[in-house]
């Protein structure tokens, strides 16, 4: 009998490690858990309920689509958990639970499964869900509660428990009743954009401020991101490029008109820039694969973030910047293909 050797012909890298998609994804979930814990400590049981609702809805949607398409279940690969957690972390803490669940359905269904599941989606699913919610419910998604409210562990924000498809109860009275001195329900970005009040960057770095549930603590997000980078499970180039470019551009604006544009540290620690740069821009599906491409992609998103915040009508621009970056990343890949060995460049470098 002739021995047949099966030759696997494939591109580099040829060296394999035992890391699988599931393992990386599980580590991302571990890295997100401290951020979730901090968000729950800061905003209370409403945030816990919101995170549970988005994650459960994401898992349920994934299972439903898997069953409908007649393929095996893919909920074991943790990607739906990540989508659910990330979506929950980008939402205002008091958002009605049904809106969160709807966002998770949109994120996993139209955002990922209709493209063919994990690895085929164009955009970061969590941000697709958030973009849908922002367009559908512009008021609810910009209604923030203040951090460290009194009684946040014993009672829900009134808007959290709205009936499905019904309006949320007004929360102004609740915020006024439960807020601690020195805290406000407006996010630093909103204060800066609409009231021209700049929050001190150092206090923002520590994280005790109003905002989307998981975006408030840059130090924690940095630590959790570093964990993934050190374990080699995430590219350091994309967050570095995105953060650096936004700092540089913000500094340029700040030097041109310091009264109108806040400084680079404010830009770095406010809004969802840190969370977006660390956990959403680095989605391995949506980012380019070449190192040069990653730099271009990161710089593009950093620039867009600052441009939208400073020049646009919206207070926050990270979400649209990353979605645009996702859309452009195949093009960036195409333009930054390394030349084949032996190929000559037209011009001598």
């Amino acid at each position: 009998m002739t021995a047949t050797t099966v030759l696997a012909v494939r591109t580099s890298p040829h060296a394999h490690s035992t890391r699988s998609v599931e393992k990386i994804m599980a580590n991302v979930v571990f890295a997100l858990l401290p951020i979730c814990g901090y968000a729950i400590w800061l905003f209370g049981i409403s945030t816990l309920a919101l995170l549970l609702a988005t994650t459960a809805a994401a898992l349920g949607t994934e299972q439903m689509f898997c069953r409908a398409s007649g393929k095996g279940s893919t909920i074991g690969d943790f990607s739906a958990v990540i989508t659910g957690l990330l979506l929950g972390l980008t939402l205002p803490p008091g958002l009605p639970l049904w809106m969160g669940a709807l966002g998770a359905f949109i994120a996993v269904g139209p955002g990922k499964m209709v493209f063919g599941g994990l690895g085929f989606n164009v955009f970061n699913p969590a941000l697709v869900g958030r973009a849908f919610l922002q367009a559908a419910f512009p008021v609810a998604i910009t209604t923030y509660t203040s951090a460290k409210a009194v009684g946040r562990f014993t009672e829900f924000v009134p808007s959290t428990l709205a009936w499905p498809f019904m309006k949320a109860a007004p929360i102004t009275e609740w915020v006024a009743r439960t807020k601690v001195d020195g805290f406000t329900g407006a996010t630093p970005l909103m204060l800066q954009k609409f009231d021209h009040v700049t929050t001190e960057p150092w206090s923002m770095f520590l994280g005790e401020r109003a905002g989307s549930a998981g975006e408030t603590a840059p130090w924690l997000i940095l630590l959790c991101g570093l964990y993934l980078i050190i374990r080699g499970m995430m590219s350091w180039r994309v967050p570095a490029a995105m953060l650096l470019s936004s700092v540089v551009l913000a500094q340029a604006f700040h030097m041109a008109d310091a009264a109108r544009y806040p400084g680079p540290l404010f830009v770095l620690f406010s809004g969802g820039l840190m969370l977006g740069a660390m956990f959403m821009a680095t989605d391995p599906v949506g980012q380019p694969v070449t190192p040069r491409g990653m730099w271009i992609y990161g710089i593009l998103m950093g620039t867009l973030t600052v441009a939208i915040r400073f020049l646009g009508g919206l207070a926050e621009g990270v979400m649209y910047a990353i979605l645009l970056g996702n859309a452009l990343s195949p093009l960036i890949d195409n333009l930054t293909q390394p030349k084949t060995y032996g190929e000559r460049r037209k011009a001598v470098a």
Partner: protein
Amino acid sequence: MLRDKQPVTITADTHPFLNGLWKQNPVFVMVLGMCPTLAITNSVKNAISMGLATTFVMVASYGMISAIRKLIPKQVRIATFIAIIACGVTVVDFLVKAISIPVYQALGAYIPLIVSNCLTLERAEAYAGKQPVVKSMLDGLGMGLGFALALTCLGMVREVLGAGTFLGFPVFGSRFEPWVLFLLPPGGFISLAMWLLFFAWRKERAAKLAAAEATQ
């Protein structure tokens, strides 16, 4: 994909009216006339008005085109069709203004744009320019009402979700949180996708059932 399976030809056994209304529905099957389909369907009332205006233009102009079809030299047929359709559109423009100013304001620039709706020219070229008057007018009526039907389907989804009302009457009560997105342009794309998905799914299921029956 839908179009591949069902070539746009008129078979002898299809009544011209039913053909346009359902079998070859301009929006759901032929995917023609997308501009008004996406732009004017943010309420049921606008969708119906736009559909009826288009129907009127199609019936009237196809009658004229068909009546003089043998006089039109091939080289200038498109110009002639457009002139006749444009005339119909201008007449409709006046009539809508005379019937209701609010409807006219809501439809705005889209009435003049009926003339550039590819559906109107496509049916003139494919049908009215070749068929007798009554059949052509029936085709225009079927296609126009099919268009109106499709627009109403989209308008229904968008108005019910986007404003919580149907023809202005509240559906879910006053506590309903409207999905503003559906009134905005992306809502048009999303609802169109939902309807196309629904019809594709129905068709696939019917084909499966037929195949299962055939094997028995």
